[in-house]
């Protein structure tokens, strides 16, 4: 302190002696209510991830129909209940011999042999097994059409005196579809033959006579119409009648395994099928003993009638011929042979469009009434509250039944199921929104800013929509985001329960997919897996996203569930 007088004035100068100071505009950008909320939302990692998942699922639902190889109208029952074929799953399985409910053991082996060794002398079922045992599956694995891909192991199982070999192998489920019978017209038949020559791919294969198959009681009816099983025929073209014959050594009379011909119709007098020899593959023309067998009937019922052909085709090449691409389904196919991925995308479109539009429509109707109720209060509020109380107690299902029978099931009224369900949901759904809006307006209408606006002469509408509404919007948006998953659940349940059928030429619903898939849950769980997974993911994401929004808009509510 003693040094103070010694300090010279020159040591000091005014910091801003020459300039005048003005208020500066803030250099950083102002943080508004929404920006602040967005900042908080960004910090919530789970919600951000959920938002990304929602965007992904929405894009999936929108883009898949544009790029998917198969359309909604695609339906091929030959390839029903196919396993997914994508970068994770190659649809190659190891069938369990004990659990061969889905893939018939011999049938799978027969595809490879049938496609490449059809010129061989035919065999009965037991002989086929014998043959495969001797060749150790090598014949069944030859060539590109073989369904059996790799032999893992084989073990001998002794049943009394008979030694049976049990194979453990890798099976391509797409190739295992193998052969199918098709009824085609004459023109179609010519077209198929031409395609076969042009592309140099085997499509038409010789017919099998299975008229007498199963007479020994060894096979079920289903096996009789299976085009994959091939049988030994006698000189007359008859299939081997019983396995005991081969044991007795009268095997020699059977010479051909296939009918080297195509059936052209039935004789008008005797009703017996007429086979004409295929000039390319000369063979025998059989005379069936019993014309009332299955394939005569099929031909009678076929649209081609008596001018049609019944042919035996290799499914893979038939698919290529029909659709111009090989069968490959990213998420597999369902019960009816429809592509799951496109149906899933369309089903999610239905869910998303319906739920978002219902939530928005409920919000618009509800907020208008709720705002008026809350803002004006008084008698109007009292009376409309009582009415809403009664309306809210009307069961939703009653409304739904009415909408269903009045509009959706009524051919005179042109209303789609989606539109009908939309109306049913909106009829009662807006009541909740009205209540929420009403309490928001009750809360804010006496705040100072509303009073100030009114004092400055703002009209009621301006105070309501310019001042109060933006303030209550945070809560409302959160409510809307959380209402979407419950709407999705409601929509899915309705279609799952079969109350509303959204199924149409271009529409479907996840609930319908689930309900269809449940029939095959024990054997083909993949049909139900993808829709169930997608709907769960969608609901979890929307709930997480809604919780994040709530925390962002009302930080004091954080952690309250």
């Amino acid at each position, binding site marked *: 302190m003693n040094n103070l007088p010694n300090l010279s004035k020159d040591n000091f100068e005014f910091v801003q002696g020459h300039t005048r100071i003005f208020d500066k505009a803030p250099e950083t950008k102002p943080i508004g209510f929404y920006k602040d909320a967005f900042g908080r939302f960004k910090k919530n990692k789970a919600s951000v991830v959920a938002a990304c998942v929602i965007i992904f699922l929405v894009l999936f639902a929108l883009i898949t129909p544009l790029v998917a190889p198969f359309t909604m109208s695609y339906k091929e029952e030959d390839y029903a209940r196919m396993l997914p074929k994508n970068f994770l799953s190659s649809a190659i399985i190891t069938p369990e011999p004990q659990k061969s409910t889905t893939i018939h053991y011999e049938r799978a082996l027969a595809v490879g042999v049938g496609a490449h060794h059809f010129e061989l002398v035919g065999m009965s079922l037991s002989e086929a097994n014998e043959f495969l045992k001797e060749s150790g599956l090598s014949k069944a694995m030859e060539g590109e059409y073989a369904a059996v891909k790799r032999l893992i192991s084989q073990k001998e199982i002794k049943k009394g005196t008979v030694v049976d070999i049990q194979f453990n192998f890798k099976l391509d489920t797409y190739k295992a579809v193998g052969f199918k019978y098709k009824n085609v017209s004459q023109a179609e038949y010519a077209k198929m033959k031409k395609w076969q020559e042009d592309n140099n791919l085997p499509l038409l294969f010789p017919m099998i006579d299975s008229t007498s198959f199963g007479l020994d009681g060894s096979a079920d009816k289903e096996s009789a119409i299976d085009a994959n099983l091939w049988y030994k025929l006698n000189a007359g073209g008859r299939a081997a009648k019983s396995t005991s014959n081969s044991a007795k050594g009268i095997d020699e009379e059977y010479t051909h395994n296939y009918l080297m011909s195509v059936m052209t119709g039935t004789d008008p007098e005797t009703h017996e099928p007429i086979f004409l020899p295929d000039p390319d593959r000369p063979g025998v023309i059989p005379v069936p003993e019993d014309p009332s067998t299955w394939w005569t009937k099929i031909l009678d019922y076929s649209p081609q009638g008596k001018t049609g052909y019944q042919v035996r085709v290799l499914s893979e090449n038939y698919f290529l011929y029909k659709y111009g691409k090989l069968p490959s389904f990213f998420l597999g196919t369902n019960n009816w042979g429809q592509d799951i991925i496109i149906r899933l995308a369309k089903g999610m479109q239905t869910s998303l469009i319906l739920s978002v539009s219902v939530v928005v429509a409920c919000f618009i109707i509800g907020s208008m009434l709720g705002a008026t109720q809350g803002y004006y209060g008084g008698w109007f509020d009292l009376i409309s509250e009582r009415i809403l109380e009664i309306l809210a*107690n009307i069961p939703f299902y009653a409304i739904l039944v009415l909408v269903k029978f009045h509009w959706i099931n009524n051919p005179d009224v042109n209303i789609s199921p989606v539109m009908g369900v939309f109306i049913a949901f909106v009829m009662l759904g807006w009541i909740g929104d009205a209540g929420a809006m009403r309490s928001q307006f009750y809360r804010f209408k006496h705040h100072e800013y509303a009073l100030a606006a009114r004092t400055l002469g703002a009209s009621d509408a301006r105070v309501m929509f310019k001042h109060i509404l933006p303030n209550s919007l945070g809560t409302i948006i959160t409510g809307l985001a959380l209402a979407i998953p419950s709407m999705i659940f409601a929509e899915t349940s309705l279609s799952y329960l079969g109350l509303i059928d959204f199924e149409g030429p271009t529409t479907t619903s996840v609930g319908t997919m689930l309900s269809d898939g449940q029939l095959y849950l024990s054997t083909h769980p993949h049909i139900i897996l993808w829709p169930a997974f997608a709907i769960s993911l969608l609901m979890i994401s929307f709930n997480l996203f809604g919780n994040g929004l709530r925390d962002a808009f009302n930080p004091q509510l954080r952690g309250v569930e």
Partner: protein
Amino acid sequence: MFKYILKRLGFLVLTFLIIFVVTFVMFKSLPVPKPDDAYKLHYWQSMGYDQPIMTQLWRYLFGFETVNTEGVIERIGGVFYGDFGLSLQYKKLASVWEVIFEALPPSMIVGFGGLIIGIPIGVMLGFFAAMKKNKWQDHTISTAVMVTISVPIFVYGFIILYYLCFEWGWFPSRVVSLDQGRTWFSPEVLKSLFPAMLTLSFGTIAGYTRRVRAELTEAMTSEYILLARTKGLTRGQAIRKHALKNAFVPILPGIIASIIGILNGAMITERLFSIPGIGGLFLTAVQIFDYDLLMAITFFYVLIGLATGIIIDISRGFLDPRIRVGSRKGGSY
């Protein structure tokens, strides 16, 4: 209190009557197919299904006296006489009450089983999460609850069906039928109902965990717990004597509501496991368009919904002496 209950009951009857008339008119605006069966046609005409709606309402409420084939005067229908009509499609001319009461036991057993499994686990998990608040256990439980509540119930059903019924074969995938003298309480029938109970319990567990945790954490941060601790009570004593009691005031009415709610049945679960319950009955009634049955079930649902509201409010007053239900001023209700 008594006055309050009377008042609420009066209001219930009023609301129910209004909803009744509104729903009745709405249902009656649908065309009823004329039955070709002579017995059904007799009922159909007696109830005035081709008459104006007001006539139908009158006959539905008070019934219709008619001379039957044996010359005896008998009354058909009449809600005021306890007759909600006859089922025309589902069971030939059976009283709808009979049909509904037949469907109630399986629904109630499954619903009750779901609660028996769900509530204790839910309450315990919620308690545990609240005790470990903001620790990893709490976060794990909260996340699991979030996921469990979000995932739709049929997904649990599929998982349970696939693993418990098909893959592992512990339970039959369908409900055992009631022939050979079995009742709903026979061991094998109960066993076949178990997967459905388990499916229902997922939602119950998640819901109760969330509520118990929320209520208990709120109670734990309140001032009376602080006071109790300052007085020298241990944490356990404070929780037992103060926090738990207060936390359960809002939860117990919820449990009562859940118990009444089992009367509603569970449509999705009943369809998943093909249980012949009331939810499934409603679906069938919609599909085959059984008029009286549909209306009776609807009114049954409305009545349960309205009654639950009253019972919850009244039970609140019994459970917590501080709440004076129906008091005019200063009451916490």
